[in-house]
C-alpha cells in the first residue's frame, strides 16, 4: 500500500472506497474531462471490506463540496493528502450531516426542483443511509437517488 502512495509526488489518495463506488466518485470530480493523472483500482482485496476501490489523483485537492460528496458516496473511505511523496494528512471520511446543492430531490412536487436543495442525512433502523429533504421533508434511501447536481 505504502508503495502506491509513494508513487504520487503531489495529490490525493482515496482508499477503502466501498467496492463499486469509484466510478461514481470519478464522475463526481469530473476527472474524465480533466487533465489530471488518475490511477484507479477496482475490486482490490481488503481485510476490512472484502473488496474495495481506490483512486489516486495527481496535483489535486478536494474542495469542501467535493469532500462532502465523496463522504456521502463512500463513508469510511480514507483520504490522504500527499505532498512531495509524503502523506501530510490522513482522515477517515464520515457521513456529512448536511448536504447542500448536490442531491436533486426525487419528489416531483418538491419546490426545491426549481431552486436549490438541502438534505440532512441519517442511518435508519437497518443502518441504511437515508437523506431527508429540508423543503418537502420527505425521506429517501441514498441508494434510490438517481439525479445529482454535479
Amino acid at each position, binding site marked *: 500500500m505504502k508503495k502506491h502512495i509513494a508513487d504520487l509526488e503531489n495529490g490525493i489518495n482515496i482508499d477503502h472506497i466501498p467496492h463499486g463506488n469509484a466510478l461514481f466518485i470519478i464522475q463526481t470530480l469530473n476527472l474524465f474531462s480533466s487533465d489530471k493523472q488518475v490511477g484507479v483500482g477496482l475490486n482490490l482485496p481488503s481485510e476490512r471490506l472484502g473488496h474495495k476501490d481506490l483512486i489516486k489523483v495527481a496535483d489535486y485537492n478536494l474542495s469542501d463540496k467535493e469532500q462532502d460528496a465523496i463522504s456521502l458516496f463512500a463513508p469510511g473511505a480514507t483520504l490522504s493528502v500527499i505532498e512531495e511523496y509524503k502523506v501530510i494528512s490522513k482522515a477517515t471520511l464520515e457521513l456529512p450531516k448536511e448536504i447542500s446543492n448536490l442531491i436533486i430531490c426525487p419528489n416531483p*412536487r*418538491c*419546490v*426545491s426542483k*426549481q*431552486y436549490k436543495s438541502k438534505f440532512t442525512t441519517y442511518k*435508519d433502523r437497518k443502518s441504511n443511509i437515508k437523506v431527508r429533504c429540508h423543503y*418537502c*421533508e*420527505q425521506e429517501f434511501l441514498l441508494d434510490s437517488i438517481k439525479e445529482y447536481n454535479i
Partner: protein
Amino acid sequence: MHSLVSISDLSKNDILDILNLARKFKEGKISNTLSKKVIASCFFEASTRTRLSFDSAIQRLGGSVIGFADSNNTSLANKGESLSDTLKIIGAYADALIIRHPQDGAARLASEVCNIPIINAGDGANQHPTQTLLDLFAIMDTQDKLDGINLGIMGDLKHGRTVHSLIEAAKLFNMSLFFISPKELRMGHDQLFSLKQSSIHYSFHIYAEEIIDKLDCLYMTRVQKERFVDIDGVNFDSYCINLNTLEKARTNLKILHPLPRREELPSVIDDTPYAHYFKQAADGLFVRMALLEILFATV
C-alpha cells in the same frame, strides 16, 4: 417563534401556549395586536375554508388582509417569475405572510426568502400545521388535557397528511394510539419505529367496535374508496361508522374529522353527543387568532 412552517418546529410548550391562548379567545378575549398591520394571505391553490378562517382571525385582531384566493386568477400564474422572486416581493408589502401552495416545501422556501413571519396554510402533500393545532385544540377542549389521552385514528393511515402530523404531536403528549385500518393501509414502518423509540403505546385494529370502549377521541380521516377497492377482502363499510359502532362508547368520547367528510362519517352521527367535528373546524378560528397573536408578540 418567528414562523410556523412545520409542526415539528414547535416544542410542547409552544403548542400549549397556542392552545391555552386559543381557549381564552374562545372565552371572549379581545385583542388588537394586529392593528395597523397588513397580512398577506396568498393562496396559490384554492382552499376556501382555511383562507376564510385566517381572514376572519386577522380582522378580529384588528389587522387588514391583502392577497389572493387562487393564483390562477392573478398575473402571477403566467409571467414565469420564480416563486422565490414572487415571495420576496410579496414579503416586502406585508407584515406577515400566510401561504398555501401546491408544491411541497413552498412555505419553507418562503421562510428563507422573506424577512417576515410565515404561516404555512398547507404546502402540497407535506404539512398543514394549523390543521394539527386545531385537531389538538379539539382534544384538549373536550378532554381537558392532552397528556395520556387514548386516541383512535381510523381510515387510510398510510397516505394521510393530517394523520402523520397529528402523530408527531401525539409523541409529545404521550398519547396511547389505536390504529384502525386494513393491514394494507397501516402506517409505514419508519413512523412506527419512531413511535417505538418515543415509547408511545400503539396497537392495530381492524374494526372500531373492538376498542371503542377504550377511546377518549376517535380521529377519522377522509377515506378514498378507490384505495379500499383495490384491497382484496376489505369491506369498505368497515371504515365507515354508524350508530351501532358507538354502542359501547365512553360518555366522554368525541369524534373528530378534518372535513370535508364523505361516506365514512354519515350525517346520522351529527345529532349524537359524540359529534365534535363541526366545532373542531369552527374553533380553528381561535387557534389561528392565538397563533397570530403569539407570532406578533415575539417579533
